């Protein structure tokens, strides 16, 4: 196999002239990070709520929460994305669907991808939060109730402050996954990293350079996230618990 390596290709200007191919990679990186972080906010909020609801004594509430988890866990991410992008706008009430269709394409892609990725991940976050709550000794909840707290107060002051700290290490891997999963948004045309890799191949005919660069950028994201989460874990770890230090 003879292949002409050409690393300086990244410094060439793109056909439209306003930036270099390296600039394209920068744009892709920005979209990947923006998309993943926005989706992560949704995943934490919705997943936290659903995870709590799965542990409450109310049957209807915990059933609804279970339905949420099973629905978002048992349909492939790609199918969910296409449903948000192609199906939801047709079915939404109150003219929301039409409003969606009138937005510019980039906003449409971004909105669909954020909702999809956020809710997809929320089901996984919910499972971790539920496991975190269930891992607490039963006595903590009883003690809260015995002190005269209502159930919501017990959750607010006793259970959740513990559970959210315990759950941070397992959430790290979900946080890493959301960055990787964001690559799926390439299928609806969002110009995130893996889309830029394909564009670079099309425009420069230097596939290996393009793919190696993008692969390295994904690894860089991974290492950065792991580093930050380690520091966060150290800051919030519960003394006396496994992995909680002294």
């Amino acid at each position, binding site marked *: 196999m003879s292949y002409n390596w050409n690393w300086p290709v990244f410094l060439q200007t793109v056909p439209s002239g306003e930036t270099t191919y390296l600039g394209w990679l920068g744009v892709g990186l920005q979209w990947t990070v923006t998309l993943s972080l926005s989706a992560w906010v949704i995943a934490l909020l919705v997943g936290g709520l659903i995870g709590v609801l799965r542990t409450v004594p109310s049957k209807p509430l915990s059933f609804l929460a279970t339905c949420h988890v099973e629905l978002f866990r*048992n349909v492939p991410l790609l*199918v969910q994305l296409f*449903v948000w992008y192609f*199906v939801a706008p047709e079915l939404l009430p109150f003219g929301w669907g039409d409003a969606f269709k009138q937005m510019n394409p980039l906003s449409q892609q971004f909105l669909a991808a954020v909702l999809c990725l956020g809710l997809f991940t929320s089901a996984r976050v919910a499972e971790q939060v539920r496991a975190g709550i269930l891992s607490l000794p039963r006595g903590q909840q009883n003690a809260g109730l015995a002190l005269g707290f209502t159930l919501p107060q017990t959750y607010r002051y006793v259970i959740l402050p513990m559970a959210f700290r315990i759950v941070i290490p397992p959430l790290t891997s979900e946080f890493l996954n959301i960055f*990787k999963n964001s690559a799926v948004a390439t*299928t609806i045309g969002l110009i995130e990293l*893996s889309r830029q890799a394909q564009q670079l191949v099309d425009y420069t005919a230097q596939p290996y350079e393009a793919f190696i660069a993008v692969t390295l950028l994904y690894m860089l994201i991974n290492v950065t996230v792991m580093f930050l989460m380690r520091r966060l874990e150290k800051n919030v770890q519960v003394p006396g618990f496994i992995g909680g230090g002294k």
Partner: protein
Amino acid sequence: MNYDFDWSSIPGALPLLAKGMAVTLEITLTAIVIGILWGTVLAVARLSSNRTVAFLAAGYVNLFRSVPLVMVILWFYLIVPQLLKSIFGEGLSDIRFVSALVAFTLFEAAYYSEIIRAGIQSVSKGQVNAGLALGLTPGQTMRLIVLPQAFRNMVPLLLTQAIILFQDTSLVYVIGLADFFGTAQKIGDRDGRIVELLLFAGAVYFVLCFSLSQFVKRFHKRIGQ
């Protein structure tokens, strides 16, 4: 909501969808079988006392686990045809299918190897010592004593990973391969019935994955006793 559903294009599409499902299953099963074999090799290598071997295996696993599956599929779509051309010459028909098979197998092996490594480490050290004391070589101890016990503990996790893999095969969409999802999407586009076809595909995936995961859950409980 004022969308007029029209499900009439689905019955006629069923044979094509079945063909797509066959592709999905072929990729899934191949990646499971070879992925577990290769994953076992990687796991044993990672636990090896030979530093270089362990380092290489760890590098492989970490590389694949830090890159999105979409990228890996595109990578192999790029590399495999070149390789096959240099081996067999031009004129291979469905390169996309082969490259998807290779991509999924090598990618899943990294994930399987982590499950298997945890399984091996969950077998108590005394078992290894007993094996060695009986005069078995380290290789024999691994093969005859540690791995059988490790695999029994791992079955639920391996099955759960298989369900994830089954869902992930839909990503071959990025190289235009007609698996179950790709077929549904194409038919939806052709008939202008993308809403119905996507909902149908989602429902099929849901029913299959939900029943399988319920089965795994029950199985997990049974062997837990």
